[in-house]
């Protein structure tokens, strides 16, 4: 980075001195465009991010850390970790299975199946929560039956898990499908003809080929699982210390004008987002060929 600055600072000077290539804009246009992009990204992306950390520390480190001593905040953090620990492995398993079936075999209706897997991305988070209320709510299809057996789904942890599964459903699958389609079946066929079992072929041939893509998908799914708000908000019931995840606790604290605590908890999620972005960038940069990445989100 530090080496890049002097040469880039010189760049406009050189551009003025040397005859401009026909495929370049004038230095003025160029600098204006860079200025507009930097200002826009700064205003819309960096400033909100900076606000989170500044507000969290507005009353000093003591108030910041006191937030995490609160039993409700601790319960929210614990619940968020539990939900992610259930949801992410399940969706990763599903992603691997779906990608295996779709990329290694040909069967009719494959593109329909891929579209259906992508479906949760085009559904509003609130609607994702609502559908589970319609299934498991007290007026829902299965709600009364489950209630008769003493199982509460909506306004309890199972509902939160289901809604989170729904919104993070496609992440791993859509990362692995294009990647495994590109890799084809030749290596697996070679392993199988050499006598490896199917599972061993997967572990020793397929998995090493897809590990970075898998990690990439898991990271994105995890960030979303821990941060999901709309869908979880509909099914959670907002019971303090019981069914509040971190984002829901942030909402409650904010609405109570407990701004420092709200932003302190939020900074935890913002930190997670930054770590996720960092890993993502690293993976894209280091293993560009081994992840599908950079496609449509």
């Amino acid at each position, binding site marked *: 980075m530090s080496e890049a*600055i002097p040469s*880039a600072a010189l760049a406009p000077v050189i551009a003025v001195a040397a005859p401009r290539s*026909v*495929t370049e804009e*004038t230095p003025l246009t160029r600098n204006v*465009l860079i200025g507009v992009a930097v200002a*826009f*990204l700064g205003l819309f*992306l*960096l*400033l*909100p*991010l900076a*606000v*989170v950390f500044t*507000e969290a520390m507005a009353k000093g480190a003591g108030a910041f850390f006191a937030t995490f001593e609160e039993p409700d905040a601790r319960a929210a953090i614990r619940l968020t970790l539990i939900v992610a620990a259930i949801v992410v492995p399940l969706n990763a398993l*599903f992603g691997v*299975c779906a990608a295996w*079936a*779709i990329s290694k*075999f*040909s*069967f*009719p209706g494959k593109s329909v199946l891929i579209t259906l897997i992508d479906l949760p991305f085009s*559904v*509003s*988070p*609130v*609607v994702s929560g*609502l*559908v*589970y209320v*319609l*299934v498991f709510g007290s*007026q829902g299809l299965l709600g009364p039956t489950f209630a008769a057996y003493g199982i509460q789904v909506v306004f309890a942890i199972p509902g939160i898990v289901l809604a989170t*599964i*729904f919104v993070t*459903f496609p992440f791993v699958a859509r990362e692995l499908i294009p990647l495994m389609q590109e890799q084809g079946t030749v290596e697996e*066929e070679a392993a*199988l*003809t050499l006598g490896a079992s199917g599972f061993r072929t997967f572990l020793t041939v397929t998995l090493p080929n897809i590990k970075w893509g898998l990690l990439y998908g898991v990271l*994105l799914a995890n*960030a979303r699982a*821990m941060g*999901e*708000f709309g869908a979880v908000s*509909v099914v959670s019931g907002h019971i303090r210390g019981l069914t509040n995840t971190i*984002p829901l606790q942030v*909402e409650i604290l*904010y609405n109570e004008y407990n*701004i420092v605590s709200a*932003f302190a908890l*939020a900074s935890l*999620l*913002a930190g997670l*987002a930054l770590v996720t*972005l960092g890993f993502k*960038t690293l993976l894209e940069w280091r293993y560009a060929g081994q992840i599908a990445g*950079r496609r*449509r989100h």
Partner: protein
Amino acid sequence: MSAAAPVANKKARSFTAPSVIPGFRATFGFTIFYLSLVVLFPLSLLIFRASSLGLSGLYGIAVEPRVAAALRTSFFISFAAAAIDVVFGLITAWVLTRYEFPGRRFLDAIVDLPFALPTAVAGIALAALYAPNGWLGEPLADYDIKIAYTRWGILVALVFVGLPFVVRTVQPLLAEIDAELEEASATLGASRAQTVWRVLLPPILPALLTGFALAFARSVGEYGSVIFIAGNLAYISEIAPLLIIVKLEQFDYAGATGIATIMLAISFSVLLAINLIQAWSQKRFGHV
């Protein structure tokens, strides 16, 4: 027992093309099972509930003044936000792929922030930023400009969530454009502006439209980042997803189902539009 196995085998074989690779039935079966259980069953129940309302029932819900106002608010502000994202997303994508400047890599990485940052966090951050005592709200208040707790607040939040869709859809195409095309255009006497306008932009138009559609679809359904900054006044700054929650809290399940169905219909039309754009692009430009 022994007779059943070959039959099942034969059935599987006629469904998939022959392959030595094992595990089709297990993985395909689990995929379909999990997909049906988690996604298709709940969604089809929503459609089923909506169909019991009938078209006239749905229409009745849609024209209720408060619902109609919320749908209008969501629809038009999402449209405006997606349009703003197209303009600035294109400039951002252009700058990030074509120019070298200090901090470029960092900005490129940060574009994905709205994907990674939980919506509730974005929501309270934007609200704090534009509130009358916020970093931006305070100086703007001197000019009598109010953003937080008005419709402008909704617009700001939706511009935030939609931006990466446009940038990430356009960026790969801008990176792939053949420099020879630009050189040919220049040697044939076109000015730089003409080259950009008539040679570079047409092939990325489908990507811009796709980015617009994705940003729009996301914005219509967005909840978390909007509600903190919107003010949520019925008839004025209330968005459709919030109204679903309001209806649910009033135990008006039919109303909530109706709004959700209308929103699903909007999402699916957008998905269809994206597919049509891509089919057209494939035919016209040979790429998606």
